[in-house]
């Protein structure tokens, strides 16, 4: 067996080959338009004309949907109610949702963010934005699926680990390591997505110094992964490592991630900023903060972060 190259993990191309989108709109004219646009882009499309129907499709096709594109305002069961329903279902709760809202309703965006929706489109739909937001949601969906598959391979007695120190350098290592470390936590699925984002950030934005704007541009050109892989081999970056320290304490499990970059202004990324809600990336830290961990603390410059999950104390009989 010498098939142990990093690519055998399948992690290099986390985007599903033919992404499947569930599009939901009570206006069948807009829904037909949307369906056609999505099909033109090479996606498979399921449609539903109200929230209730959307839930039925999700029940039936749960493993076949990659992204849900939801209208905010629908009679009977609106977009937010569909999201609330999805959040109660373990396997649907992490499916990326794109919400379509009225053009001048930042309060609707804020409401959605509070409900756990991180992707937004405004009506009327602009093709450029549709592509950008959809590509970000599909990437998240694909990455989650691949990481989850990978993780199921080495589920073990990891809860016995009290301390673990690791060092890594590349994007592939970041992804593999996040699958490994997530298993130390009582709910690995919950931690996985946020942890992967933090480890990937420490490579791309930390050690390799890719800026927010550069990433926007690289994703739009479909060149992000290639650029990261190119940079990590340059003499300037080749020796930089990320250190990861896991510790199980009495009341919490924590992970400390330290990179060798200059840091960044992490403050504006701790929550989803409605102004960036239609960007093609930039949600990872907020997801780690709001969903994956109970607390997230950066050092002042932003090249070290501690993410923790609180553990319920066992009853002392």
């Amino acid at each position: 067996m010498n098939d142990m190259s990093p690519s055998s993990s399948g992690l290099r191309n986390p985007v599903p080959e033919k992404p499947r989108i569930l599009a939901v709109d009570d206006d069948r004219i807009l829904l037909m338009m949307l369906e056609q646009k999505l099909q033109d882009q090479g996606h498979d499309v399921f449609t539903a004309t109200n929230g209730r129907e959307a839930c039925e499709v999700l029940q039936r096709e749960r493993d076949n949907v990659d992204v849900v594109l939801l209208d905010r305002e629908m009679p009977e069961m609106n977009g937010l109610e569909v999201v609330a329903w999805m959040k109660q279902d373990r396997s649907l709760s992490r499916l990326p949702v794109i919400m379509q809202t009225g053009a001048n309703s930042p309060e609707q965006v804020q409401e959605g963010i509070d409900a756990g929706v991180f992707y937004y489109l405004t009506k009327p739909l602009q093709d450029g934005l549709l592509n950008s937001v959809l590509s970000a949601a599909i990437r998240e969906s694909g990455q989650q699926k691949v990481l989850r598959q990978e993780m199921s391979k080495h589920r073990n007695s990891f809860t016995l680990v009290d301390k673990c120190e690791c060092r890594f350098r590349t994007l592939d290592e970041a992804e593999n390591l996040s699958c490994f470390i997530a298993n130390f936590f009582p709910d690995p699925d919950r931690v996985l997505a946020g942890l992967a984002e933090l480890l990937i950030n420490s490579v791309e934005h930390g050690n390799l110094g890719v800026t927010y704007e550069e990433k926007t541009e690289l994703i739009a050109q479909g060149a992000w992964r290639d650029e990261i892989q190119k940079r990590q081999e340059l003499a300037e970056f080749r020796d930089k490592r990320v250190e990861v320290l896991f510790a199980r304490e009495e009341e919490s499990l924590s992970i400390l991630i330290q990179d060798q970059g200059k840091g960044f202004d992490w403050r504006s990324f701790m929550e989803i900023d409605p102004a960036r809600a239609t960007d093609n990336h930039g949600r990872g830290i907020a997801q780690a903060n709001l969903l994956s961990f109970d607390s997230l603390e950066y050092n002042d410059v932003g090249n070290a972060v501690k993410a923790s999950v609180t553990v319920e104390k066992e009853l002392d009989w």
Partner: protein
Amino acid sequence: MTNSTEGPEILDMEAVEDAKDAMKGKFATMVQYYLEDTVSFVEQIEAALSANETDKIVSPAHTLKSSSAQLGAMQVSDIARELEAAARGTTDGEGAGENDIASLTQRLRAAFEAVEPKFKEILDQQAA
């Protein structure tokens, strides 16, 4: 032909052509859906008005605003937009009164009756 209503065109042919290009073989079906749905939305709005339930105008007006714009029925879209705003204003206890809503509803029906034959003409041409 006289056109006494000011404001946007009854039917914006550029939007029609865009929709045709985008929808390819499904354009005719979409127009048929639009005509059916719009008849029903206008009726819903009229019924809500006579029952004095202006809050029930918001949703059909909201949908009409966007679907009409998508297919180039700009007058219908414009009036629907005003109607939605007026109906929301009323439900909040301020803004436009019943009279405005009543006259907007009349104008909405007139605008739809003006655009409907134009769509049917396009459908006939397509079928030919």
